[in-house]
């Protein structure tokens, strides 16, 4: 069963995002093109044999809570072991910290393959890597020594504990507390909800990275610190010690990703939970946000993976399902003629094209972001800062577009199957439930849109926006000289102008202190901005496809044409809505509903 296209992935890596240029950097000297090909191949083999065959079962036999413990599907045992052996967990980290210095561009490609195969799995791996990375970047040597290697082997799981019942989007309202003790550790107390991957039968220990407030810390985000809180204490020799009273209170039953557990955790309820400060007091949120950029790109990648799997499932169906007949030139159908396959109906082709355009455009954007992070790592001074700014402005888009447009794509995938799509026997309904979470966790679409318009667009006097505009402009320039691409290059230029028009209209509101008006349609602005950004990615794909063999090139150019005709054309309407000053949402008082 096909769930992604290896040829397209290789094309995006090599031809669109120029992996070989990246491999010339000293940091990545351990890899060459051949080893990356082997790696992609190995992860495909792993996904074909160990991940994809279990995706439906993990939904049908979801994880459950029993006797204080979460039980996940049996297959997770061998998966975690193999992923650890293959060194897939912290491969992007520095060699000195136990990583392999694999470019994030490639790392994200590998995880995309796994996610397309089975989106219930990678969260366990990704959170463990993210937690280990936080310890490596901000923890003491002692914490690193004690915890990181077991996590990278996937023997111990890692988690991120931010959310509390009263503090979801608004992390400044966190109330979990940390009381300093005499030996320099802290005593942690509090309830954390919706904590992913925080318990199962296949890890001996869980290393929770917990946001909490040290007694007497200032209110708001400036008083939040980060702690490492193990489920079992770890002795000096690395062996497991006493229970650290991190209790699993329950497991949430969910709409989707039912194999990926989400739990309610209680710290310090049944006894003392010792926590170790990571970095400095009151800087927890800053540390967490560094991690969250990568987690947000990862969320977008996961949305892309699910949408890819849905696309290929619906494509196969469309090639096999006979239904209806083509009209003859008389306008009539001939009932004695055999039925045609649904893939021959223009409306079905539209649904397939839409999915393809979203999946490949999103994947390209995710990889672009990853490449910027890589470039940031290997460059210095102003160049480094530029890549940092580009990552900052694109991250909320890489999180949001694949999750929102991906949702739409999977929905169309289901539609392709007609009534069968609605049946539990077919997997499309599961993908639709699975992808639904992506626009919620790691910051909702609303929050990402506020981040884009409220922070990223304006940061350093618009420096990030200017850099991105420059990147888009240089793609436009390249495309202007190619006949196949010229008209799209012009449309992209117009799209970029529409963003400018919106900002020129909105900025005065912000200057006058009317921030509510400035931000009220942030999500619509996100829609416009991200559509333009995906148009940019498609133009890059178009340019690179010109050197490919005829069939591949035609497939890419045609999908690009679809995106420009059917999606870029929406931008004008969005701009109109954003610049409309009637303030419909603001003026709708709560009692008017």
């Amino acid at each position, binding site marked *: 069963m096909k769930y992604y296209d290896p040829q397209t992935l290789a094309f995006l890596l090599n031809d669109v995002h120029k992996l070989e240029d990246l491999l010339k950097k000293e940091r990545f000297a351990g890899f060459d093109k051949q*080893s990356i090909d082997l790696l992609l191949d*190995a992860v495909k083999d792993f996904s074909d044999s160990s991940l994809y065959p279990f995706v439906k079962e993990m939904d049908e036999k979801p994880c459950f809570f029993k006797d204080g413990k979460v039980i996940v599907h049996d297959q997770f045992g061998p998966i975690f072991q193999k992923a650890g052996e293959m060194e897939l967990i912290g491969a992007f980290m520095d060699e000195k910290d136990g990583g*392999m210095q694999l470019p994030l561009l490639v790392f994200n490609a590998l995880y995309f393959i796994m996610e397309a195969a089975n989106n219930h799995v990678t969260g366990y791996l990704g959170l463990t890597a993210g937690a280990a990375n936080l310890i490596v970047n901000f923890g003491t040597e002692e914490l690193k020594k004690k915890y990181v290697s077991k996590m990278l082997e996937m023997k111990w799981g890692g988690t991120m504990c931010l959310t509390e019942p009263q503090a979801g989007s608004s992390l400044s309202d966190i109330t979990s507390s940390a009381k300093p003790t005499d030996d320099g550790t802290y005593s942690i107390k509090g309830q954390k909800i919706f904590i992913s991957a925080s318990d199962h039968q296949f890890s001996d220990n869980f290393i929770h990275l917990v946001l909490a407030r040290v007694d007497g810390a200032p209110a708001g985000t400036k008083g939040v610190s980060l702690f490492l809180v193990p489920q079992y204490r770890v002795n000096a020799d690395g062996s497991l010690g006493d229970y650290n009273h991190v209790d699993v209170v329950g497991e949430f039953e969910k709409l989707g990703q039912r194999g990926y557990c989400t739990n309610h955790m209680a710290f310090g309820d049944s006894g003392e939970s010792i926590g170790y400060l990571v970095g400095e007091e009151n800087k927890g949120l800053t540390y967490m946000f560094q991690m969250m950029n990568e987690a947000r790109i990862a969320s977008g990648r996961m949305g892309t993976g699910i949408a890819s799997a849905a696309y290929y499932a619906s494509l196969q169906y469309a090639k096999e399902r006979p239904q209806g007949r083509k009209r003859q030139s008389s306008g009539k159908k001939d009932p004695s003629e055999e039925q045609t396959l649904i893939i021959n109906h223009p409306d079905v082709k539209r649904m397939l094209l839409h999915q393809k355009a979203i999946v490949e455009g999103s994947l390209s954007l995710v990889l672009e972001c990853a490449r910027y992070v890589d470039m940031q790592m290997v460059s210095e001074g102003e160049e480094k800062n530029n890549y940092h700014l580009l990552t900052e402005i694109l991250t909320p888009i890489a999180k949001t577009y694949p999750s929102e447009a991906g949702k739409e794509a999977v929905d169309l995938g289901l539609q392709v199957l007609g009534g069968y799509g609605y049946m539990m026997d077919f997997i499309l309904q599961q993908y639709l439930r699975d992808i639904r979470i992506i626009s919620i966790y790691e910051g909702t679409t609303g929050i990402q849109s506020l981040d884009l318009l409220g922070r990223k667009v304006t940061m350093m006097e618009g420096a990030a926006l200017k850099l991105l505009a420059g990147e888009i402009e240089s793609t436009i320039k390249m495309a202007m000289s190619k006949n196949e691409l010229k008209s799209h290059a012009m449309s992209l230029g117009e799209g970029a102008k529409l963003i400018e028009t919106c900002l020129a209209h909105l900025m005065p509101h912000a200057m006058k202190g009317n921030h509510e008006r400035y931000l009220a349609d942030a999500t619509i602005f996100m829609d416009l901005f991200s559509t333009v950004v995906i148009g940019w990615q498609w133009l890059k794909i178009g340019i690179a496809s010109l050197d490919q063999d005829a069939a591949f090139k035609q497939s890419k150019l045609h999908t690009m044409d679809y995106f420009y005709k059917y999606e870029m054309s929406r931008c004008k309407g969005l701009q109109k809505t954003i610049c409309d000053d009637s303030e419909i949402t603001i003026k709708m008082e709560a009692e008017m509903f």
Partner: protein
Amino acid sequence: MKILVCITHVPDTTSRIAFTDGDTKFDKNGVQFIIGPYDDYALARAVELKEQSGGSITVLNVGEAETEPTIRKALAIGADDAIRINAFPEDALFVAKQIAAVAKDGGFDLILMGRESIDFNGGQVHGMVGELLGIPSVSPVMTLDIDGDTAKISREIEGGKEYMELPLPFVAGCQEPIAEWKIPNMRGIMSARTKPLEVKDPTGDAPKTKVSKFELPPAKGDVKLVDPDNMDELVNLLKNEAKVI
């Protein structure tokens, strides 16, 4: 223990097969190549044997430069070094002679192959190599354990299994369930870059056979669905259309 594993570089089983040059040549366009699946079992068992009792694994392929990514994969999975005999593998005897020439003075305790290639499915090379070297050759081997200088193996035979013991060295054509295919890990892939891959010229032997034409099997006919209540129609179709009864 010194193990030689002979691997083929064959089209992925999902490839679309086509021919060119008046149906005398295989069309490689757009075809993804892999390690022969049976050879992959042989390699996996070699890695396990090495893990158990140490030693080294050499992989050998008779093929042109294009087979090197496949050889690299074998190195990534766990072989220590590789030899490529720089020649197009025209026929089984030619290939066997190349392998025998390498093995003759190589001091290998064990020569593992697949039970058959999956492109031409000859199942001949292991027998020929055994003959050329004057050592036993067994196939298809389903389990293989080493105890000192002796090997205990089981073979699939018509309607059952055969258990054998034989002295080292010998040639084995392997098949499942001898070991599970191994997926290379990242460190293996990285170290494969620096493991030695020696390219050798072929012996002077000339291939003795030549392909005059390839032919694909005829396309399968359409499926006909017969109502379970309509046995007469089924019998009629089997008799008069399919002509099988």
